[in-house]
């Protein structure tokens, strides 16, 4: 992205919005992660205006390859603003630029938060038990605060309401996605039937992050500092977020810590119930864990397709496709265990 090699136009945009008399760029680096978005850290010093002094911002813009299901920068910015206003620890959303003449595409500016997000690094850190418990409890609280946002309470009309229920809409969507992939996947077909036959009674729809997992939140000195990557946010069953966070596929090898390889469900559920006042139903979470693993398998198949079609030749995408049997194995084991337990 050539436009991003020179941050002066972004700096000018920031200065205009902050009504600064002067702005000086002191650092500009590309941040890792984000196959769908480009993230850059921009450090500036401003004179006058609404926020004088030194600041580091994150500038988020579209990467060359986008996924149809993801939100535009404008939509994502609206979602983050809504979550931030509801008390969710998202990076503070500051300014949105939809004028493509500035850097060639829309971008948004957020305050940079400290910490690391890399899932493998976080899981390897092995926090002391008390810190891990507190961190996982805070993840529960964050999700519960987010899930308080409901379709009637927020102006996010660009987000579609799943019909007739979140679970059935997901199942229908995943069957459609499998139809677009030439290689057959009997295990995923079986799992979709399993999910269809066991759909729990639907809950009121909530704003869901839909990619809330280890790797997408920042932790600094054992504490949660920011929830990132909101481009898949949607109205859904609130348990979808709990299931995605707990799915075995997202534990980065630390399988005994069911909450993203970081800690235990009892702490997550405690934190969640602490905000909502309602106990979490563990079996519902497990149902949505199965849904999560099916979804991840389908995303992995789609990533492999991007490689196979020549759209983006990549060893990483190719190998992601070969991870699908891992998710299929986990799905089968979890479904069969749940059948044995529940009869």
């Amino acid at each position, binding site marked *: 992205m050539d436009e991003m090699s020179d941050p002066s136009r972004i700096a000018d945009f920031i200065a205009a919005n902050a009504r600064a008399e002067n702005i000086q760029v002191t650092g500009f680096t590309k941040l890792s992660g984000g196959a769908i978005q480009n993230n850059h850290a921009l450090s500036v010093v401003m004179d006058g205006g609404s926020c004088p002094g030194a600041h580091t911002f994150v500038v988020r813009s579209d990467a060359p390859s986008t996924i149809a299901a993801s939100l535009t920068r404008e939509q994502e910015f609206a979602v983050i603003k809504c979550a931030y206003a509801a008390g969710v620890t998202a990076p503070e959303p500051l300014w949105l630029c939809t004028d493509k003449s500035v850097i060639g595409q829309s971008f948004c500016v957020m305050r940079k938060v400290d910490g690391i997000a890399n899932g493998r690094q976080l899981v390897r850190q092995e926090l002391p038990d008390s810190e891990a418990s507190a961190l996982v409890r805070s993840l529960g609280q964050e999700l519960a605060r987010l899930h308080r946002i409901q379709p009637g309470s927020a102006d996010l009309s660009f987000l579609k309401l799943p019909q007739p229920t979140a679970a059935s809409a997901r199942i229908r969507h995943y*069957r459609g996605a499998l139809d677009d992939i030439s290689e*057959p*996947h*009997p*295990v995923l*077909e*079986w799992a979709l*039937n399993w999910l269809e036959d066991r759909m729990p009674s639907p809950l009121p729809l909530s704003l869901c992050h839909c990619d809330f997992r280890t790797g997408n939140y920042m932790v600094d000195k054992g504490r949660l500092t920011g929830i990132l990557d909101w481009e898949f946010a949607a109205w859904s069953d609130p348990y979808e977020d709990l299931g995605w966070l707990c799915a075995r596929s997202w534990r980065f*090898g630390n*399988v005994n810590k069911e909450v993203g390889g970081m800690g235990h469900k009892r702490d997550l559920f405690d934190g969640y119930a602490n905000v909502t006042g309602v106990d979490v139903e563990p079996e519902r979470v497990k149902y949505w864990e199965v849904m999560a693993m099916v979804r991840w398998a389908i995303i992995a198949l789609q990533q492999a397709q991007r490689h196979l079609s020549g759209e983006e030749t990549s*060893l*990483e995408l*190719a*190998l992601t496709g*070969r*991870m699908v*049997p*891992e998710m*299929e*194995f986990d799905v*089968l*084991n979890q479904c*069969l265990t749940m059948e044995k337990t529940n009869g």
Partner: protein
Amino acid sequence: MGNQPDGQNLLLTARRVLLEEILPILPDESRYMTMMMANAMGIAARELDAKKRSDLEEEKSLGLFLIEAGVELDQKVDCDHEGMLAELIRQRSIPDRWRQPLAEMLLALTRRKLQISNPKYLSM
């Protein structure tokens, strides 16, 4: 019958050179990509090995399952039994009394795939 050493042997030999001789002299930032290359070569080698031994057997066991479950099969050897199975599951055409054997068969199928793509995962 091709020339020797065969494809599997070549891949494994190249993989060993990559890991033992090239990786130690590469900068840290190349480590992830190199490990991915070694992983891809390992998968490809195991797949070649499995193809030599069991492709037909696998199709036969899947085919037998379908016949026993009362499905009329196209008798062509290259018939895509896995595709047929996926379709039958989608259509919910496999009788309910075959529920248990079907689950076991899918587990066995998945284990065989993992033996190729990531055998360590089976013991995690």
